[in-house]
């Protein structure tokens, strides 16, 4: 989170046709906005060009008896750790749980969309239950549809499910990229957490073991990701349903001698 994306949609796009043309293009858009404000007319449609309140990594790992995903409970406002105890995990159905990184308001919108679909299913009351992979495909269609309107839901969503003894772990992102895998991570977790997840993954991994692994990896991410906290949540889906844990405070170690004593000479560093 926190990266500034250059070149969003709308009148601010700078095409390299010729500097004159580019200036005309953006000037025209600004003039239209001003005109609209002066005229009191409805403002032109806006689009998401950058996220504001963001969640960092989400991690997921498949087990022999279920799936475990985890995320910290921080929503950052740029570099400020603004909302420190929010849940980035959401129970969609009794066999499926999702977690998202990226723009938190878009995640809230996704939660509403998914809950609406589940409510429709509940009202139909016909004995059919959407499988996690069906929910995954539905999410893909939603995200890709928004991407095609150049107005994305700025999230990377990790979906975990355990339905009829089949474990599902997949990702859908703001472009509509979607895939399933034994290990999944988003954000900084993709760079620092995924290698650790891959090392830890075994075919006969259990949910209990995976929960411990998640704590360790999120601790590493707390040490190294500047947009994370040590307050985390772990969700597990298994034959007994979805279980999203209470907030766990990770223990961290800061009393290294080098930290306490500090770097006395130029050639000593605390790295």
């Amino acid at each position: 989170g926190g990266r500034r994306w250059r070149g969003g949609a709308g009148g601010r796009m700078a095409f390299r046709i010729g500097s004159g043309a580019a200036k005309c293009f953006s000037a025209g858009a600004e003039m239209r906005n001003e005109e609209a404000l002066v005229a009191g007319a409805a403002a032109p449609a806006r689009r998401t060009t950058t996220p504001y309140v963001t969640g960092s990594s989400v991690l997921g790992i498949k087990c022999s008896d279920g799936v475990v995903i985890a995320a910290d409970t921080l929503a950052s406002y740029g570099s400020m750790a603004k909302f420190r105890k929010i849940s980035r995990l959401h129970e969609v159905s009794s066999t499926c749980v999702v977690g998202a990184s990226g723009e938190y308001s878009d995640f809230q919108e996704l939660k509403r969309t998914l809950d609406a679909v589940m409510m429709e299913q509940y009202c139909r009351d016909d004995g059919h239950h959407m499988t996690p992979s069906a929910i995954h495909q539905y999410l893909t269609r939603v995200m890709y549809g928004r991407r095609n309107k150049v107005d994305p839901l700025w999230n990377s969503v990790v979906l975990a499910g355990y339905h009829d003894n089949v474990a599902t772990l997949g990702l859908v992102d703001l472009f509509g990229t979607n895939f399933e895998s034994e290990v999944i991570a988003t954000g900084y977790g993709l760079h620092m957490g995924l290698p650790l997840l891959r090392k830890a993954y075994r075919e006969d991994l259990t949910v209990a073991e995976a929960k411990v692994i998640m704590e360790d990896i999120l601790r590493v991410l707390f040490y190294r990701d500047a947009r994370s906290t040590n307050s985390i949540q772990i969700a597990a889906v298994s034959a007994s349903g979805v279980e999203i844990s209470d907030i766990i405070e990770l223990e961290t170690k800061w009393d290294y001698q080098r930290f306490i004593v500090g770097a006395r000479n130029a050639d000593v560093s605390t790295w």
Partner: protein
Amino acid sequence: MFRNQYDTDITTYSPQGRVHQIEYAMEAVKQGSAVVGLRAKDYVVLATLKRSTSELASNQRKLFEIDSHVGVAISGLTADARVLTRFMRTECHNHKFVYETSMPVSHLVLTIADKCQVSTQRASKRPFGVGLLVAGYDATGAHLYQTCPSGNYFEYKAFAIGARSQSAKTYLERHFETFEELDLKDLCRHA
């Protein structure tokens, strides 16, 4: 059924609380040739009697594949049936695109029933003059449904619609309790 002063419009109730136009639409279903459906635990079978207008003409098609897991047999106004089967195919196709799973049969039948109901409550429309027997297999097993111009739908273990379907229903009533465990060959024999 005799004409009366309350049967001109779909939007008029009779004093007995009936909408005669809907019942007349159901008469159209009874004019079509017989269509029979039977259900076992793992199989559903549809059988139809094809009619032709003359010796020169080919037989009227009454069985339609909707998706790899659903098929229908029609009785009544064939043109209306064509519209409904096209609708069912696009619904199934769309469901597969969005959810990557086969559409549950009950959900599909519900959408047709709702579509049929719409045309029973608009002054500018007439009801669909076709009854369907929908046979499908999904995550909850084998299913047989009947839909009606009224917008009602029912699930059956065995049923028949169309001309002279009463004799078919009599046969089915006698034998339906044995259908559950039958294999496909025996089920077809009954059909």
